[in-house]
């Protein structure tokens, strides 16, 4: 392409016209604050990993456990907590390993892949948390609705189906809100990167010309 060759010629000529920073200016520059996406990926991912657990700080564990035992699901909840925390620590470990692999030294393709991999780990973590919300809620609600304490408070001939429908709608809404919130953060952080990554990875079907 003649025009690109013309541009190449001009590109070289323009080198002399480029600005020049002095040694001292460059020394100061490298210590300024970075506005890199990586810092935000780290901060937001850590918040996403930690925030769901802050809720538990406000829960009186002993009283809740006593309540679950009375409902007959004490063993289920204990087993659930054990598995839940094993999985959470696995996710935190994976996130840490992935985050470490993000380096400006990598080739652009690898850098993009590593950032996407890190976010994918957080995405899987969010999916895991989102799946747990309905699972645990339904088990707890099921035992609560069967308990005598609860049934005694209901008017006679009350249709339990109504309570179930309302409960499930509320669970679905909460889960959806959490999912939307996550999609928003994910989109803000990764839209540009995903677009560039897909473009870099796409294989053109064009006929090779001028090669």
């Amino acid at each position, binding site marked *: 392409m003649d*025009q690109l060759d013309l541009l*190449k010629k001009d*590109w070289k000529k323009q080198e002399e016209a480029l600005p020049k920073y002095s040694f001292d200016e460059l020394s100061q520059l490298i210590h300024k604050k970075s506005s890199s996406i990586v810092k935000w990926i780290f901060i937001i991912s850590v918040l996403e990993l930690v925030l769901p657990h802050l809720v538990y700080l406000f829960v009186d564990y002993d009283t809740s456990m006593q309540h679950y035992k009375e409902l007959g699901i004490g063993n289920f909840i204990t087993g659930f907590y054990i598995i839940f925390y094993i999985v959470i620590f696995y996710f935190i470990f994976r996130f840490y390993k992935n985050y470490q692999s993000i380096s400006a030294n990598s080739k652009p393709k690898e850098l993009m892949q590593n950032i996407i991999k890190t976010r994918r780990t957080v995405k899987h973590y969010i999916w895991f948390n989102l799946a747990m919300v309905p699972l645990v809620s339904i088990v707890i609600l099921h035992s609560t609705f069967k308990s005598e304490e609860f049934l005694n408070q209901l008017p006679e001939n009350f249709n339990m189906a109504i309570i179930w429908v309302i409960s499930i709608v509320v669970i679905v809404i909460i889960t959806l809100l959490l999912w939307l919130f996550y999609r928003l953060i994910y989109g803000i952080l990764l839209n540009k990167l995903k677009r560039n990554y897909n473009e870099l990875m796409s294989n*053109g079907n064009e006929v090779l010309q001028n090669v």
Partner: protein
Amino acid sequence: MTKELEHKFVTDLEQHQNIIHKVCKLYTNNQDAHNDLFQEISIQLWRAYPKFRGEAKFSTWMYRVALNTAITLYRKSKRTVQTQDFDSVLFKIQATEYDDTEEEQLRLLYKAIRQLSDIEKALVFLYLEDKNYKEIAETMGITEVNARVKMNRVKTKLQKILNP
């Protein structure tokens, strides 16, 4: 990090700063944005410097980190898009008035390049820097065939922008 390491890094940076300025020239449209991106690339280079083991030339390594920053790590791109929209409107008006002078052709070419995507700009940049397909593929982390296909696609796109 030791003072000597910093001194060595800044000396190398001073010597090769043209590479960063050229990347900024392609990815930004005004002086403020240029300075901002220059700063971010310098910070990223300094952070990555301890892991630079001299396997590649300092300049080759700089291409990689500078492009990574412009394409992936740098987030403030809104300003560029707004200016770009303005430029493309201006470009359409100018393009109808055919002017064959070299200067005019160059001006239109630079405007056309500003309309390319981040990845396309990276390919054009490496092409203008006289890199062959093997080096372009190596720098971007893609295959040589993919680099050729993409570069051809960019050339076609530029032709379309210049001759709508």
